[in-house]
């Protein structure tokens, strides 16, 4: 006790050791936080998938899994394609100004080819998967040329995945990245512009 206590040295050592300890402690949590990222097995299921559309009839829709999500591929009839512009007044975002689709699908049909619609089948409200209702005449006064109705909260979308007004869903359905590998085959998961690079 005879020696004088060097207070500033003590304060420096406490401060620096604590600082290092905090850095170490935070560093130790990194692997634990990172391990919640999707695993390689999950990423493998998110790899691009191919769909053969040659067997699809007009008005027929197939659902496939990409990243574990339902993805719809619909072959629209000529009638449907003609009806799309008539609905504009009833829709929240008829011209797709909200970024819910790749640039190459940012058009009236929300698709590369008007005939084929590709959508992620998850409602933009709270994540349920809407049902495909091609013809059923809806019972309310909105014009209805077929579309999608979400079973959870009743949100309605037309056959380009555009949301109707006065329903809970805020935006149009998402169009995933995709491209036509050939006339018959669509690849979902890689965009048109990335084609050929991989």
């Amino acid at each position, binding site marked *: *006790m005879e*020696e004088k*206590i*060097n207070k500033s*040295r*003590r304060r420096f*050592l*406490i401060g*620096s*050791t604590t600082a*290092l*300890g905090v*850095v*170490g402690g935070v*560093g130790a949590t990194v692997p634990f936080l990172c391990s919640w990222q999707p695993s*390689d097995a999950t*990423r*493998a*299921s998110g*790899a691009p998938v191919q769909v053969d559309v040659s067997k699809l009839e007009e008005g027929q829709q197939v659902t496939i899994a990409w990243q574990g999500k339902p993805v719809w591929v619909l072959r629209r009839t000529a009638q449907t394609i003609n009806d799309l512009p008539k609905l504009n007044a009833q829709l929240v975002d008829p011209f797709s100004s909200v970024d819910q689709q790749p640039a190459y699908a940012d058009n009236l049909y929300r698709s590369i080819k008007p005939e084929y619609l590709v959508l992620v089948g998850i409602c933009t409200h709270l994540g349920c998967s809407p049902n495909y209702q091609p013809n059923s005449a809806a019972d309310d006064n909105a014009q209805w040329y077929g579309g999608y109705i979400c079973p959870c909260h009743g949100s309605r979308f037309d056959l380009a995945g555009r949301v109707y007004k006065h329903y809970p869903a805020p935006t149009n359905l998402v169009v995933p990245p995709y491209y036509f590998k050939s006339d018959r085959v669509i690849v979902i998961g890689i965009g048109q512009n990335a084609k050929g690079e*991989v």
Partner: protein
Amino acid sequence: MRRAILITLFSCFFSIVAVAGGSDQGVMTPDFSDQASLQRGLKIYSNYCSGCHQLSYMRYKEISIDLGIPNALFEENLLPKYARMGSQITATMASVDAKRWFGAKAPDLTLEAKRRSPNWIYHYLQGFYQDKSRPLGVNNLLLENVAMPNVLEHLQGQRLLQCQQEEKSLKSGHNCRTVAGKIKGTVSEQEFKQIAYDTANFLAYTADPSRFQRESLGLKVLLFIALFCVFAYLLKKEFWRDVR
């Protein structure tokens, strides 16, 4: 005194390690930094092993990244038609068939280098010899009554068993070796050793793929803790100066 004991213990330890390492010249040590060797090993696996043996815990993508093979090149040349880059490496031969043809399931090779050792694989691949009493006509020094055909025979050539007579008291196999037979292989003995090395090296990698990340991260972590130790030591010393 304490110091002397420690020094003696340390020197003992290292001399034992040195003797153990130096006594057997046939020991192979995996070298993960040798990417060319790992790539050759992958090629041998794809050409000769993958028909029967799976690497079911590995993914193609992981190999292409770790071995520095560009994605597109890998997809074109090494990826089977039915597989995707993200899939695990499964064999084409069903295990039911294997049991019927060879009497045993072909083991998954992902962890073989951990279950046995890379060195074991290295010697096993070189240990085949002609044995008419076996259904496949071959036997192995390391794995008696082996159920696997010698798929590398056309490379290595036929080998014959030669045992030393005078040391019969020892366990069989320990004093036996193989010598070149009549039918020569397409590669030299040295080249074949390299083939066995590359395969063992590649399988050592599949058994321990985290090693790339592990050792580089480990160095940083240890350096950090060492730094922390210095500060913790100074802090402790500073406070304990009070205590007499």
